């Protein structure tokens, strides 16, 4: 149980850290979006790198924001039936459907590593006038998927604990 608490805490910490990175990326997009217009409209000397780096920020934001959101249960579900399930039934459904999630993340990690290696090997750059390396993004994608996987494992364990500790559906739980 002690190890489990430690694991839960660490995962929350990593997710929170990723979220904070997301905050900075968001502020970056806002600040430089305005600066870009200022440079172009007021000074008539547009930057050649702002819009590309905003795109880069968005790729990173997708990675960190996904982990942050999933850890906080902010991923939207179609809880038409699910919302009325008992905690036990919910946990059971989660444990069945998590197979799809695991398959998905496994492929993002496995094929994502291939894509990252290829990107490094090709020395992939953006085709923009100020070239920006692509491989940091490609490397970060499987890393984010690994962290996501840690969150998924946390939820699996939580579901198992519910299954073990919760009594069979009794009216009290409704």
């Amino acid at each position, binding site marked *: 149980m002690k190890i489990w608490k430690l694991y839960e805490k660490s995962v929350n910490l990593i997710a929170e850290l990723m979220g904070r990175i997301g905050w900075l990326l968001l502020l970056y997009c806002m600040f430089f979006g305005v600066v870009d217009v200022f440079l*172009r409209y007021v000074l*008539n*000397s*547009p930057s*050649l790198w702002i*819009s*590309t780096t905003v795109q880069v920020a968005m790729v990173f934001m997708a990675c960190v924001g996904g982990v942050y959101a999933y850890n906080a249960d902010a991923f939207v579900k179609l809880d038409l039936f699910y919302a009325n399930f008992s905690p036990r039934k919910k946990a059971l459904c989660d444990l069945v459907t998590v197979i799809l999630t695991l398959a998905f993340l496994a492929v993002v990690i496995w094929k994502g590593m*291939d*894509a990252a290696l*290829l*990107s490094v090997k*090709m020395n*992939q*750059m*953006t*085709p*923009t*006038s100020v*070239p920006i390396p*692509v491989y940091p993004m490609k490397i970060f994608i499987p890393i984010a998927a690994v962290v996501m996987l840690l969150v998924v494992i946390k939820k699996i364990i939580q579901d198992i604990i519910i299954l073990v500790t919760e009594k069979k559906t009794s009216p009290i739980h409704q």
Partner: protein
Amino acid sequence: ADAAEKYGKPDKVTEWVFQPCFDSSDAGWANGVVPWIEAVEKATEGSIKFKLQPSGAITSGSEAFSATSAGLLDVTACWASVYGGDMPEGMLAFGMAMGADNYRDAWAAMFGDPKYKIGDLVQKASNDRNLQWVGWSSQGPNAMFTKFPVHKYEDLAGKKMRAGGPQALFHEAVGGAPVAMGGGDIYTAVKLGTVDGTYWDTGGIDDMAFHEVIQYAIMPGWCPAQHQEIFLNLDKWKALNQWQRDRINDVFMSTYFETSRMHAVGVKDALKVLEKSGGTVINMSEDEVKRMRQLAIEKVWPKVAEKSELTAEGVKLWKEFLQDIGEL
């Protein structure tokens, strides 16, 4: 093991997935990709078949080049302005800023004249990336489409133009203010005055409905002969027999001239559409083109040359070629 394999049409039919970095609305679809596919299918007597998919079907256009290298796609068609970050040598094939004046000259420098053979450098770079360069097509001028007249390059100074990658380098060199934005935003941005115009491939301006919002087409633009390349995954190339490889090599040149002519017609038509809707085509004088070429070679070409040893060699050869034919 296949020492006894006959030289000729194999029994097995090979099927390839072909996804360009653009969709069917681009001039490169009907005037570049489709004729090449038909030529290959005919030349290989039906032993190679294609499944042609638009950009975004299997993966996005920006990923099509590396996806072909990795084997997710078998074949792709793309511009170096899109894949140049993956293979800068592609810029030698795409067309240098104010480089070859027309597709015949471009062919001579790349393949025709044994003195230059710049194409070999591009093929080597492709092979290094697990690709075989199998098709080429000139799409005519990549030009400026503006709301203001341009007769000398100084007229572009201070003007906000939508320009990506190599276009932005050129626009900066002439003293303009290049603006980056997605293809889908250009129409509205020009209309509302967010930018004063855009660089674009001439044959495609009517597809993008730019004639509705701009006033002038400035010929021959910043790249008088812009090209598009077709790449095949190298493993798929090696899996063919020699006869099939020879047949594909055979159609390289014939489809180049066939599709380049088709594009030239498309360019004329697009400019007619522009004129019909009240626009004006400005052809820059020969002297002005020479001045612009000088400027491009001084300021833009070194940026291509610095990318790799092969691009440095290619840029040197391009310079020699233009000198030899008297355009410098």
